[in-house]
């Protein structure tokens, strides 16, 4: 919003500036307003009509941003405010629009997992989201970096590889999730005689018994109230890494191509190994792009949802054990418990803000030269 205001201010000032005596004013004589003679624009005698026109022009910037302002007010600001207000309304009833006093009840119940609806557990969703994000985003960025370096060092079929690596980017997340699920699936009950997906077939070659990666019998660890469905985590992380690669490769590869070749020549003369070149020259030089990918990747990771639905269905695993933060919100909206959804979204908002703030602190240090 701040940006918008600044734009308005500069727009509004431009006409006034033109009237200041100076080179601009003199050379733009023919464009000067009809009321003045163009040479002495600061002249005291301006007609009423001219003054009105100028006044209008100085405010005309507002006119241009108004459509955007209206749309944002309706679709952005109002929902934010409504969610904020709604999160403090206890036991809101969607049918009657009534609620039972103001307070932090929604937040307390969300955090305690005491919603009494059989919906997703907030802490479970938070842990899932953080874990998946902070494993898959750095992993896929690192992989993208290595692939980009490899891509950068080949000459012949570079274009072909570029296309191949970019293809997943053009595919729908739900569809990809469904395909991934079949890779990992066991159809029927999980014993050795059942039809299994390609992953289990391959594992079978190494004597590993089929694992129900995505189904109801999926192995997991129990940590107190918390469920750690590690098999599903692995599937999700593989999926996230793979689907995150194309965009990251695109960004890093093009950044690498713009590095001056002389740096590499210099490094070669200086006896740097390939490894040294990668970590001491290439990576620092594309640090702005890397940190951009990390920041946007983490933000995107915090909001992941559709991939989970694609992989594990609408219930996000068994009893929402693969639920994410956004999944949590959808879940409670679906249950008609908007108060919990609002509270959850506010908590998500605060968490994303904190992470972004930390991100900024780190990247500012690392990318300025």
């Amino acid at each position, binding site marked *: 919003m701040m940006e918008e205001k600044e734009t308005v201010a500069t727009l509004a000032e431009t006409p006034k500036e033109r009237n200041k005596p100076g080179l601009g004013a003199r050379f733009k004589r023919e464009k000067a307003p009809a009321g003045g003679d163009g040479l002495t624009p600061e002249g005291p005698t301006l007609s009423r009509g001219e003054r009105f026109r100028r006044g209008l022009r100085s405010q005309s910037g507002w006119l241009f941003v108004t459509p955007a302002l209206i749309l944002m007010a309706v679709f952005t600001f109002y929902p934010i405010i409504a969610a904020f207000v709604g999160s403090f309304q206890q036991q809101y009833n969607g049918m009657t629009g009534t609620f039972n006093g103001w307070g932090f009840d929604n937040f307390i119940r969300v955090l305690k997992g005491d919603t009494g609806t059989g919906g997703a557990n907030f802490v479970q969703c938070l842990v899932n989201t953080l874990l998946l994000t902070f494993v898959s985003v750095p992993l896929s960025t690192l992989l993208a970096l290595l692939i980009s370096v490899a891509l950068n060092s080949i000459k012949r079929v570079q274009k072909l590889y570029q296309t191949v690596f970019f293809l997943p980017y053009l595919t729908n997340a739900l569809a990809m999730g469904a395909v991934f699920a079949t890779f990992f699936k066991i159809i029927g009950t999980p014993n050795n005689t059942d039809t299994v997906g390609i992953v289990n077939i391959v594992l079978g070659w190494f004597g590993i018994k089929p694992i129900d990666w995505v189904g109801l019998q999926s192995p997991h660890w129990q940590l107190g109230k918390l469920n750690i469905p590690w098999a599903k985590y692995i599937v999700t992380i593989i999926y996230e890494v793979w689907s995150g690669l194309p965009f990251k490769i695109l960004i890093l590869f093009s950044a690498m191509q713009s590095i*001056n070749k*002389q*740096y590499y*020549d*210099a*490094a*070669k*003369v*200086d*006896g*740097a*190994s390939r490894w*040294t070149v990668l970590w*001491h*020259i290439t990576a*620092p*030089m594309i*640090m702005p792009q890397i940190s951009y990918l990390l920041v946007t990747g983490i933000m995107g990771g915090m909001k992941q949802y559709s991939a989970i639905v694609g992989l594990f269905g609408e219930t996000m695993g068994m009893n929402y054990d693969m639920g994410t933060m956004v999944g949590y919100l959808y879940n409670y909206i679906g249950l008609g418990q908007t108060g919990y959804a609002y509270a959850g979204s506010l908590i998500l908002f605060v968490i994303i803000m904190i992470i972004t703030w930390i991100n900024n602190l780190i990247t500012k240090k690392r990318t300025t*030269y």
Partner: protein
Amino acid sequence: MRISIQHLTKIFPSRTKGGEAVHAVEDMNIEIPSGQLVGLLGPSGCGKSTTLFMLSGLESPTSGKILFDDQDVTTLAAEKRGIGLVFQNYALYPHMTVEQNIRFPLDNMRIKKEEGNARALDAARLVQIEDLMSRKPNELSGGQQQRVAIARALVKMPNVLLLDEPLSNLDARLRLQTREEIKRIQRTTGITTVFVTHDQEEAMSICDTMVVMKLGVVQQIGAPQDIYDDPNNLFVANFLGTPPINIFKGYTEGGKVYIGGEAVAEAPASCGYENREVYVGIRPEGFIYDAEGAFTLRVDHIEVMGRDKSVVSVHECSTKPTVRSIIDSDVMLPPDAETLRFNIKPYKLFLFDAETEERLR
């Protein structure tokens, strides 16, 4: 370290199908004695940078050999040749401080931290940037960046120092300073140094040996003064000297050199080239004002430099629009003269074959 270049050739294949391959360097033969400062000089596209990169190992030659002392390094990788290379735009790593930049080659050689620090500091002292060690390259001026690049090249104590157009990115004043600096550093370290330049003045002023190149072919090798005084062909004569040499179309007849009907000098006694067309090159400082002189020039205007003055005149046989002759400022010229007569110093006059442009001695 002695450098020996034998039959060095570099051919770049053409980019388009059926296009012509580019002969960047052709059959180059140079012997560079140890500890010398050698300048590769030529107009752009003459293959001098390609030669330098072949010496560094970043380019591999199509054929021919490069020997450091008696070791054949033709196929040796760049990092194993023991060379220091300074790039035209310095190629300092922008994310590293000056110290890290200088230390980078040492870190790659896995040299211990204390020793590395000491050597980095020594190299920095040599080029007088020891106060700037914690800065980043973009906080330095062009001249300082240049010094950092030299320090980085010197820190690993190379056998050969290679500089690609080391002064081209500096302003005129800094250029004068830096070229003396390069000379000083080369003297102090005694490292065999090869540098590339298109600026003949730069090369003349600091080189021990100069190699003049044109279109990949070496034209002449020698001490700057020797090449200036005794050019092999028209190209070399033309390329060296500011202001440049004056070239006239002339002919020889009866043992004399004629320009536009005036016998300006004796033809070289030994040559026996009678009655043929020649190019006559006369250095600007080769004119002696003489009211009875043999060579007449129509004066356009006179430029006063203080130390000397230069007479800018025209002549119908000149291949350039104007003829420039430099006269001592204490020689009094008749005011408002339309024509002036000169005698020519015989050792400032060169004859070149009109066809081959080779020198006639």
